[in-house]
Each structure stands twice: as C-alpha cells, then as structure tokens.
C-alpha cells in the first residue's frame, strides 16, 4: 500500500460505518479518514435530510422522509440499510398501518435497474423496458396522496431515472409538493442511492481485508 495512512481516524462511527460494519480504529476506518471531508459531509448530508436544523425549509415532515427512505432502502435490497430506515420510520412514531403499507409497497415495487428510454435517435436501440409503478389503492388510503406521489417518484429515480420528465414533477406539484420540497425529496432519494452504494462497496472491501497497511 503506497498511501500514507492517517492516525486520526474518527472515533465516532457514522451511518456508513454502522451499516458497512466498520469499527473505529479498523483498517477501513483509516482508509475513510484519508477522505475526511467526504466522510464528514456524507454524514452531514444524512443529518441535513433526516435531522435538519430548524426551521424546516418547506413542509416535508421527518416521518415522511423516513417513510420514503424505508421504501427506497428496501428497493435497493441492502439489508442493513433497509432495516436502519425501517427502524427509523418506526422510531418516528409512524402508525402500524403506515409501517405495513411501506413494507408492502417495497415488495410490490421490487425491480432491477437501470432501465428506461432515451430520446429518440441512435440511443433508442438501448431502450430497456421495465415496470412503471404506482402505490396500490389500499395503501394509498393509508399513506395519502402526497406521500403516495412521492413513493412513485422515488421508484422512478431509483430504477429508471432516464424516464424522468417535467410531467413527473408536475404530478408532484399537483399532489401538493412545492418546488422547494421537490428539491429536498429529490436530494433525499438521490443521496440514498449514494449512501447505500458506499455501504455496499465498503462492506465488500471490509470482507476482503489486506493487512499490508497495518
């Protein structure tokens, strides 16, 4: 290993450490310490979405943020992240019917991405079909229009972001989301696509330790 390894590894495990199984002082903790700003601000990103500093910008309740996150993490099929956000939703005091509806929708929404269409032209040969998704009628009664429209948008972003459209944003506006809230919603879903992949990647790295650095 040719990298200089910092000795100032962080003593406080963050969400990525926790989900990827990286212990303080471990080899991967020291690897992460060499990108200290990335480590700090990945966690800061999590906090700004799930524990924002008041006053809240827009009207996007924390319990709804965790409901969407539980759905998104479930769709990614990463067990630790899925459990973490499902537990987070329960910790926000969500009703049992909501927990059940989110768990049910996570199963209903399962797919494999990325798929979707390109603008007509040479890339059309790469168009790949896949499911479009809407919350089931019974679950829509439980979750409401606004949260249901957010889940549909989250599913689009998770699996087939190249099918995104102004019309998809208009349906969020029609369901009561403001432009500012849509920015936060988009950041939340897109951030999880990052965080969960870092957990997957570092988790795989952690299972194949090299000892040269130690």
């Amino acid at each position: 290993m040719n990298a200089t390894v910092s000795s100032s590894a962080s003593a406080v495990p963050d969400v990525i450490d926790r989900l990827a199984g990286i212990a303080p002082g471990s080899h991967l903790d020291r690897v992460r310490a060499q990108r200290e700003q990335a480590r700090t601000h990945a966690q800061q990103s999590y906090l700004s979405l799930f524990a924002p500093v008041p006053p809240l910008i827009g009207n996007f309740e924390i319990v709804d943020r965790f409901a969407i996150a539980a759905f998104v993490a479930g769709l990614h099929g990463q067990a630790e992240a899925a459990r973490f956000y499902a537990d987070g939703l329960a910790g926000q005091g969500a009703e049992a019917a909501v927990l059940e509806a989110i768990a049910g929708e996570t199963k209903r929404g399962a797919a494999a991405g990325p798929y979707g269409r390109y603008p007509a032209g040479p890339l059309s040969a790469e168009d790949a079909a896949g499911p479009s998704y809407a919350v089931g009628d019974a679950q829509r009664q439980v979750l409401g229009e606004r949260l249901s429209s957010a889940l549909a948008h989250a599913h689009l972003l998770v699996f087939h972001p190249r099918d995104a459209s102004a019309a998809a944003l208009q349906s969020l506006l029609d369901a009561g989301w403001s432009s500012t809230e849509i920015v936060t919603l988009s950041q939340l879903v897109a951030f999880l696509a990052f965080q969960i992949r870092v957990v997957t990647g570092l988790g795989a790295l952690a299972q194949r330790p090299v000892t040269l650095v130690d």
Partner: protein
Amino acid sequence: MAAESTLSHPDNTHPIAFTQAQLEWLPWLEPLPEAELTERHFAGLVDASRAKSPYFRLLARDPDILGARTRTDKDIFYNPEAGLPRAERELSAAAASRYNGCIYCASVHARFASHFSQRTDDVQRLLDEGVQADLGERWNTIVAASVALSSTPSAFGAEHVEQLRALGLDDLAIADVIHGAAFFNWANRLMLSLGEPQQSVAA
C-alpha cells in the same frame, strides 16, 4: 401561495447521443433568482460562481443538503492525496453516468477523464459503445466495478474488489472507485429528474 408549475422548453434541442461536447442544462422547476440568494444559500453553493448556474440555484432551495453534497463531491474527486488517479475517478463517474443514461453528467466527466488521461478516443468509445467497450484491462475493470455498483440492487461484490486489487489498486484507490461511482448515482438522479440537457449552439 399560488400553485407552482413546471417550466417547459419547447424549443430546446435535446442531445440524442452521448458526447464530450459542452452541453447546457435547462431546469424544469424555477431556480432561485440570483438577487434573492442569502448568506445561507451561498454557504450551500460553496463556490460563489455557482450562483450563475440554474442547476445550483435550483438546488439552493435546500442549501444545507446542497452544501454537504458539494463538500462530499469535492473531496471524492479533487483530494490529491494518494488513492486513485484523478483521470480514473472521472472514469468511474463517466461510467456510472453512461450506464444510468445521464447524457449531461457523462459529457462533463468524459471530458474530464479525457483531459486527465489524454485517452480521448478510449473515452469516446465508452460513450459510443457503452460500458462494454474494450478500453484495456485496467479501465475495463474500473468501468465494470462502477457499473456493478450502479445496478439496482447493486451487483458489486468481493470479485470486483479482487479484480481491482489484481491491477495493483490499494484499498484507498478501491474506495475512490466506490465513492466516484456511488456519487454519480446521486448526481445522475438530480440532473436527470430536475431538468434536461441542451445541445449547445456551435460557437
């Protein structure tokens, strides 16, 4: 508050192929007006020059997550201390963008990958042929790892770690591949969903 509506760009010439050319980007939601940006917004933008960009002024509607995201981005791609060479961090970003289908993000990071590697033709093959293009063993392996990580659910596993190790990448370099590709799964989803690319008018 009056109901908001999306912005439309009926006259836009949308690029229909991946390119290393400079593209523009048009938002589907109203960015904040530059004159209304406060200290908190500028803190989120990090670089004041980003106030010129409609993309960043739209994201500035939630300045705290924008600021944290921008600082994450900068360390993953610009931190010069050891790890993966810059050209290959850009390659991981371009590969994820090509795979997800973000023509705008791919154009930016393909240009950077070409600039830092001087392998413009290989980068163009990634854009033209897709993520299966033969770019030589080292780049093929980095692209394959970035693509596996970008699949949903992720297909990245121990075999990718082993293949990257076999090329001589140390764990910080492998972590850089992971972070570069993972970060563009964040960026692609914002650029693709909040607006559309625009073919620049030839200068």
